[in-house]
């Protein structure tokens, strides 16, 4: 092998610490890129594929009971892909903790083998037998059951039925985003056992193509409805859905998009780390370069040698980060996917993807070469004279600036410590890079804490619509006065409001499809709702058919604004309503609307009656709410009321907060990665500084500098850098926090966050920096103290 390549190998092998440092710096960045790109490519695609493969329903029609022949004739309609009948019933189930909850049970012809909204079997049986229950996995967790448990169901008349759970499935269509109601699947015969009619009352249809075309689906739906009506059955209501893309796909992409940006930042930061280390490498090799030029090497030959060294570093880093990035990216996808019922394809132990590998190779080569070319050119261009005589010509003019003079007024810097102060600012380029890395890393770290508060604030805003402690629903309307009377008998109940709730269908101009809207009507003087308005105003007593819609409506009609008139069909009658305002809700696609109690109760003919009640309790803790929900449930049942469900209001907030926290944890991991890069940078800088100043340390010892002076000098340098970087990080965290929280909240909630500051971020980061600088200076300080003078002052 040619000796110059032997030199490359020797350079890499002989200083393993430095090689490790450079390789680590490159690896971090390339790893981050690999991890996030893998997740970006795997997750959304798996989401959509799984969703589409589950054959999600496009048209749901509720009508009078029907049988298989109607299904057959509907399925022959051109445009229809498949048609199935469903019977959906609700019963009450006793949870593992003894409280009662509503469960929706779905039955179809071949339950388990049905072809629309296909289930994914997790464990147990795919197809339940009669009187057996197939449970939805999310529901299992909510209710607290496991496979094999026998559950107790309570029918309307109080009869108890017990059923074993024989299988657990996932619903890949994610049909139940917001409300997360438990669901199970049973056979049609079981329906009868549960005292319901064993016939279909819902027709579910998929279209044969263009599943993303609302108009096409609407046209097919119209045909289906005609067919049903022609069979002598009225259509109660119809719902239509596009099914080309997973409902959560855009959120997943938004989150991954943010992670990508952070990943790029990490690459950027690690680039500055690489620059520092390569700079130091070249400086240390100045003499050797001079010798090589002395014996005949030209500048370009020297350049080539060091470029090859960089390529070697890159190769080593790629060997580590390509497989690691793939594995981590896959794990990341798994973490994200458990929230949203997605099955990931099996890609083997190391899921390599060509696009990701190509990207990693590009980054892993471009960044080190890009930053390394500068010190290499500088080093390779050095003249033999300068190199061999030790480059003694002072590069920096070492003059006292006004900055130095001001700093020296500080008492702490009198005496020998002024050396530490000036040393910090000697290698300005290196200092700048280190500060940049630490400041940016710290800024992101602090920002993550601020973002967390912002997100929680958003959740608080939203749960302002669920400000009730207990939500009580009955199977039928009751007189509000009566209910209020009974409610007040329970200790702990503060007060109660009767709300009117119904489903409506919005007829959107220019579109054939109608959009379902869940309409709430609280009493005019309701204390249990705190709306956050985006446009217009809230509904007021005296408003005639006024409605405030949530921001999901803007996806249906982006031009919607207060003052618009829309056609809504309530209780079978289509009338003109006026939009008075648009309010901020969860960002999920379901449309909700609020109107006045007077309006809605007259539309559905239930003045002074309500089936839905909101109760405020004296204690607002979740535990108290849950406890009181159970008490309320029991009390009303005992008194003969048909209770559908009594639910603690805090549970919704819990769920949302959990989802937010998942995102926050992800951000925190990225922030920690940047912090790691920053601290490696600091340790590297301090070490390099010491390495280049061993002579000065020797001189210091020769003129009386004992151990603790030497150590102190190093540590103070570290502390100064730490302090400055902290101030910079704090400053930079403001814009980062703003941008980051807005991007996330707009992606999820479609509206920006209020600016919030959390002292936690600053405190924790300041602590971390203090620890980091201490640790990062300790080792070099130790080494400096232990150098013997003879080693450093060896005469030639």
């Amino acid at each position, binding site marked *: 092998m040619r*000796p110059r390549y032997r030199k490359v190998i020797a350079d890499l092998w002989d200083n393993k610490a430095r090689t490790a440092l450079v390789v680590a710096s490159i690896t971090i960045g390339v790893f981050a890129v690999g991890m996030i790109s893998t997740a970006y490519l795997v997750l959304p695609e798996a989401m959509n594929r799984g969703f589409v493969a589950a054959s999600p329903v496009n048209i749901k029609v509720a009508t009078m009971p029907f049988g298989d022949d109607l299904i057959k004739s509907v399925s022959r309609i051109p445009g229809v892909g498949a048609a199935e009948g469903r019977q959906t019933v609700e019963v009450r189930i006793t949870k593992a903790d003894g409280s009662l909850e509503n469960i929706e049970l779905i039955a179809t012809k071949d339950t388990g083998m049905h072809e629309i909204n296909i289930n994914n079997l997790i464990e147990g049986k795919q197809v339940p037998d009669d009187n057996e229950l197939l449970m939805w996995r999310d529901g299992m967790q909510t209710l607290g059951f496991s496979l094999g448990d026998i559950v107790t169901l309570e029918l309307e008349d109080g009869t108890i039925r017990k059923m074993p759970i024989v299988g657990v499935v996932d619903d890949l269509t994610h049909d139940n985003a917001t409300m997360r109601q438990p669901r199970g699947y049973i056979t049609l015969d079981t329906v009868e056992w549960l005292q319901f009619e064993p016939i279909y009352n819902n027709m579910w249809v998929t279209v044969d193509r263009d599943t993303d075309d609302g108009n096409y689906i609407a046209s097919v739906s119209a045909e289906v409805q005609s067919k049903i009506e022609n069979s002598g059955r009225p259509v109660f209501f119809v719902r239509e859905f596009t099914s080309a893309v997973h409902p959560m796909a855009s959120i997943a992409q938004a989150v991954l998009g943010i992670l990508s940006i952070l990943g790029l930042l990490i690459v950027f930061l690690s680039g500055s780390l690489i620059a520092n280390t390569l700079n130091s490498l070249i400086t240390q090799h100045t003499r*050797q370069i001079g010798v090589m030029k002395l*014996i*005949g090497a*030209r*500048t370009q030959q020297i350049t080539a040698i060091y470029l090859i060294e960089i390529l070697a570093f890159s190769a080593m880093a790629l060997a580590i980060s390509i497989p690691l990035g793939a594995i981590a990216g896959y794990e990341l996808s798994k973490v994200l996917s458990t929230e949203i019922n997605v099955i990931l394809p099996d890609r083997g132990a190391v899921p390599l993807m060509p696009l990701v590998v190509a990207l990693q190779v590009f980054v892993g080569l471009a960044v080190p070469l890009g930053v390394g070319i500068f010190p290499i050119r500088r080093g390779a261009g050095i*003249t033999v004279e300068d190199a061999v005589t030790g480059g003694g010509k002072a590069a920096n003019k070492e003059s006292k600036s006004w900055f130095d003079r001001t700093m020296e007024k500080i008492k702490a810097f009198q005496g020998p410590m002024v050396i530490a102060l000036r040393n910090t600012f000697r290698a300005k380029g290196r200092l700048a890079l280190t500060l940049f890395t630490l400041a940016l890393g710290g800024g992101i770290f602090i920002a993550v804490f601020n973002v967390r508060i912002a997100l929680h604030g958003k959740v608080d805003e939203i749960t302002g619509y669920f400000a009730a402690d207990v939500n009580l629903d009955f199977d039928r309307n009751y007189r509000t006065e009566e209910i209020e009377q009974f409610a007040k008998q329970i200790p702990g109940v503060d007060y109660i409001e009767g709300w009117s709730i119904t489903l409506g269908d919005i007829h959107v101009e220019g579109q054939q499809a109608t959009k379902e809207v869940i309409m709430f009507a609280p009493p005019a003087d309701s204390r249990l709702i705190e709306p956050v308005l985006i446009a217009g105003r809230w509904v007021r007593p005296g408003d005639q058919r006024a409605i405030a819609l949530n921001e999901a409506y803007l996806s249906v009609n982006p031009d919607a604004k207060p003052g618009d008139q829309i056609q809504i069909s309530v209780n079978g009658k289509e009338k003109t309503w006026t939009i008075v305002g648009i309010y901020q809700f969860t960002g999920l696609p379901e449309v909700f609307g609020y109107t006045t109690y007077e309006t809605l109760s007259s539309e559905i003919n239930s003045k002074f009656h309500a089936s839905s009640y909101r109760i405020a309790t004296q204690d607002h803790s979740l535990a108290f709410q849950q406890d009181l929900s159970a008490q309320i449930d029991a009390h009303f049942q005992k008194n003969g009321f048909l209770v559908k469900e009594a639910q603690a209001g805090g549970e919704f907030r819990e769920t949302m907060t959990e989802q937010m926290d998942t995102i926050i944890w992800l951000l925190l991991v990225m922030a920690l990665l940047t912090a790691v890069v920053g601290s490696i940078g600091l340790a590297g800088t301090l070490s390099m500084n010491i390495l280049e100043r061993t002579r000065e340390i020797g001189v210091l010892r020769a003129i009386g500098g004992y151990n603790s002076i030497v150590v102190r000098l190093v540590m103070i340098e570290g502390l100064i850098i730490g302090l400055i970087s902290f101030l910079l990080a704090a400053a930079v965290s403001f814009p980062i926090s703003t941008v980051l929280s807005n991007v996330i909240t707009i992606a999820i909630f479609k509206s920006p966050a209020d600016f919030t500051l959390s002292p936690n971020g600053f405190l924790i980061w300041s602590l971390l920096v203090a620890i980091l600088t201490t640790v990062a200076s300790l080792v070099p300080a130790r080494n400096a103290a232990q150098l013997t003078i003879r080693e450093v002052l060896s005469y030639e």
Partner: protein
Amino acid sequence: MFKFRSNAAALQSSSAVTADRNTPFIRLRDVRKVRQTAVGDLVTLKDINLDFYRGTFVGIVGKSGAGKSTLINVLSGVTDVTSGEVWLGETAVHKLSESNRALWRGTNLGVVYQSFQLLPNLTLLENVMLPMDFCGRFKPKESREKAMHLLDQVEIADHAHKIPSRISGGQQQRAAIARALANDPPVLVADEPTGNLDSVTAETIFELFHKLIDDGRTIIMVTHDRHLAERTQHRLRISDGAITENSHPIGHNPHA
């Protein structure tokens, strides 16, 4: 790239000029070197006029800072001249770019410094092969053989596969000399080559030098030590950047 290669060809042919001992091989004319320092311009070489012949042992003496190192650097192309001419054979060294000077130096000149300047993490053999690698004169296999031969000539072939820190100072110096001879240069330039060696080792080095002189090479040596200076044929003294004594001024042939 191609222009560069033809330059290289031109450079390499200069050493193939006939080995005529009676024509001055190295010529310096009115060489001046001025250095800019923090405290003003410093003239380190003033009006240097010198002729050196093949097969001559030249000794340069002078106090520290007198300009010996600068003169050596000018001769070896490490430093360019502020004005004046430096000729080696037919090559106008003063006109070469820094990069070309490196190549020229690698093929025409062997340099030996007081501290041995071997690359610390390569073996002796690899160190000796380096100049051949950089100047591209020999194929890898040839250069390996040649390097072993050179190490043998300086009697350290047994240590060929050791790195410099594992051998003594004297042996390192010998390795440095072997390296200096790698490309068969007609000139050897040495700055205090025996400064760090004991008298016995120094003697061996000197015997080697004499052999090289007999072969027709020119050896230009800088030294502090008067004993060493005594053993050279052509002696000159530099003081304050000027030649104050010259045993063979221009026109005076040491072989005559």
